[in-house]
C-alpha cells in the first residue's frame, strides 16, 4: 500500500498511457460488435501487424538515436502512416475473407467466431514464421534484417529520447507519456465526431441499431461493415505506434494479451458503446497499475480480469451499458 502512495503519480501516468493503447484497440472490438454482433478475435493481430509495420518503416528509413527534431517527427509520422495502412488493410482483408463469405451463407454466429479465432492464429503464425516464409520465396537476402529471429522480440531503434517535461508528485512525466496520452485522446475525439456527424458514421450507427431499417434508408450494409473494419483497423494501427513508442519492442504474439485486455476494456465499458471503450481502456490501465502496486506486479493480469468479473457482476452491461446503436446521440 505504501508503494502505491509513494508512486501514485508514476502509476497514474503510466496507467493512462497503457489505458490509451487499450482504449484505441478496444474501439475496434466495439465498432465491429456494433454492426455485426461479432467479437472479432483476430483484431489483436490487426494491432500486432501495425506494430511491425511501424517498426519496419523506421528500420527502412534508417531511424536511430540522436536524430534531429525534424527527422524524429518524420519518422513518427511515417510510423503512423505505415501502421495505420497495414492494420487497416489487414482488418479489411479479414472481413473480406474470414467473415463476409460466412455472412453471405447465413452462417450462425458461432461459426464466425471460430473463423475469427482461426484467422487470429494464422495471422500470428505467419508473422512468427516470417523468416521461413521469406526464405521459401527466395527473398531472404533482401529482407534478412526485417525477418531474422522471427520468434523473438524485436526492438524499435531509440528514435525518441525520453526526456522529462515536468514533474508531478515526484514523477518526471516524459515527452513520450504526454504524446501518447494527448495523441490517443485526439484520435478518439476525431473518431467520435466521425461516427456522430459524417454520413458514413451515421450509416454505421443506423446499421448497428436496426440493419433492416438502415437498408430501407439506402444504407449499403456491406459497405458500412467494410468501413467499420477499416476504421477499427486504423485505430489499432495508431495504438500500435503508441505501444511501440512506449514499450519499445514487439513480437509475433504481442497482440494476444493486449487484445484480450482491450477486449476486456470494451466489455468493461459496455460492448458496442464507443465512449464505454474509452472509459474501459483507461479504467483498466489505471486499475492494473494500482492493483499491481498493492498486490505485486506478477498479479497485474489477474487484477485486470478480477476487475472485469466484479464490474460485470454488478453491471452486466458494463460501465456505460448501451450499445453503439442505442447510445444517445
Amino acid at each position, binding site marked *: 500500500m505504501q508503494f502505491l502512495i509513494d508512486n501514485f503519480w508514476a502509476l497514474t501516468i503510466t496507467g493512462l498511457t497503457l489505458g490509451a493503447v487499450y482504449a484505441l484497440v478496444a474501439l475496434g472490438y466495439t465498432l465491429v460488435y456494433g454492426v455485426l454482433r461479432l467479437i472479432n478475435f483476430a483484431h489483436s493481430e490487426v494491432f500486432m501487424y501495425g506494430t511491425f509495420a511501424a517498426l519496419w518503416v523506421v528500420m527502412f528509413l534508417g531511424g536511430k538515436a540522436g536524430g534531429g527534431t525534424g527527422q524524429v517527427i518524420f519518422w513518427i509520422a511515417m510510423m503512423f502512416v505505415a501502421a495505420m495502412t497495414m492494420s487497416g488493410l489487414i482488418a479489411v482483408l479479414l472481413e473480406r475473407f474470414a467473415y463476409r463469405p460466412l455472412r453471405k451463407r447465413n452462417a450462425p454466429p458461432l461459426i464466425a467466431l471460430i473463423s475469427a479465432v482461426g484467422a487470429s492464429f494464422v495471422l500470428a503464425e505467419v508473422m512468427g514464421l516470417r523468416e521461413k516464409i521469406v526464405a521459401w520465396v527466395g527473398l531472404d537476402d533482401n529482407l534478412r534484417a526485417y525477418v531474422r529471429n522471427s520468434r523473438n522480440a524485436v526492438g524499435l531503434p531509440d528514435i525518441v529520447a525520453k526526456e522529462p517535461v515536468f514533474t508531478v508528485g515526484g514523477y518526471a512525466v516524459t515527452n513520450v507519456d504526454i504524446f501518447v496520452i494527448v495523441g490517443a485522446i485526439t484520435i478518439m475525439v476525431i473518431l467520435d465526431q466521425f461516427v456522430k456527424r459524417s*454520413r458514413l458514421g*451515421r*450509416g454505421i*450507427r*443506423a446499421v448497428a*441499431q*436496426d440493419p*433492416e*431499417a*438502415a*437498408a*430501407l*434508408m*439506402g*444504407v*449499403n*450494409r456491406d459497405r458500412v461493415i467494410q468501413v467499420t473494419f477499416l476504421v477499427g483497423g486504423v485505430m489499432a494501427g495508431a495504438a500500435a505506434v503508441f505501444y511501440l513508442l512506449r514499450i519499445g519492442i514487439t513480437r509475433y504474439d504481442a497482440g494476444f494479451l493486449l487484445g484480450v485486455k482491450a477486449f476486456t476494456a470494451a466489455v468493461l465499458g459496455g460492448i458496442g458503446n464507443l465512449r464505454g471503450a474509452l472509459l474501459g481502456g483507461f479504467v483498466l490501465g489505471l486499475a492494473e497499475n494500482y492493483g499491481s502496486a498493492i498486490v505485486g506486479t506478477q498479479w497485474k493480469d489477474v487484477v485486470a480480469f478480477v476487475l472485469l468479473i466484479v464490474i460485470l457482476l454488478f453491471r452486466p452491461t458494463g460501465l456505460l451499458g*448501451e450499445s453503439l*446503436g*442505442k*447510445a*444517445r*446521440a
Partner: protein
Amino acid sequence: MLLEVKGLCVNYGRIEAIRDISFTVDEGEIVTLIGANGAGKTTTMKTISGLRPVRAGTVTFNGKDITDLPSYERPVLGISQSPEGRGCFVGMTVMENLEMGTYARPDRKSKAVKDDLERVFELFPRLKERVNQAAGSMSGGEQQMLAMGRALMAKPKLLLLDEPSMGLAPKLIQQIFDIVTEINSQGTTVLLVEQNAAQALKRSHRAYILETGEIVREGSGKELANDPAVKAAYLGGDV
C-alpha cells in the same frame, strides 16, 4: 403503372410466405393490401424494398425490373418504406432520423431537402417540437409519425406504409389516416398494408385481399368495403 408485381413467390427457408401473387399500383393511387396475420403482407412489402430474396416472379418499378436490385439502391429509384414496427433509430434524435431518410438522395445537400423537411414538419408538427429528442424516448404514435416523416424525406415516388396504425389509440389512427390521404393528395403514390381494414378501404382507390400468401380478391376500396364476405371476415360485420 408505377409498380407491377407479377407471379411473386417468396420463401422463408422451406416455408412459402407468399405464393404467386400479382398486383399493380398506378401513379397517384392509394392501394391497400389487407389480410389477417401471417397472410404475407409484410413479406410482400419487404420484398418490394429488397429485404427478402425472390424465389420466382418479378417486381417492376417505373418500367425497370428491380427483382434482384439490392435494397440500398431502391430508395434512389423512389421507393421508400415506413416499416412494420416503425424501425426508428431509437438512439438518434428526431432530426438525425429524418436526415437518415435523405441518406440515399443524390441531392441530399441541396435546398430541396430543406423544403421537404418543412413539408414533413407541416404534416407532423409534433416532430418539429421534438427535433432534438431521442427517438427512443417518444410515444408509439410519435415514432410512427417519425417513421413516416423519415420515409418522406427520401422524396419517394412510391411510399410503402406497413401497418401505420398498429398499436395506436383510435383518435391517433384517424389522424394518421388523414395524413396518409394528405400525402397522397400532394402527389405521392401510396401502397398501404393494414389490419385496420375499415379505415384503409375507405381511404384507398383500390385494394387486394391476401389470404395465406395468395391474393383472393381485388377491387375498388368502396366495392370491397361493401362486400358481405369481406365485411364478415375483415370488418367485423357492419362498418
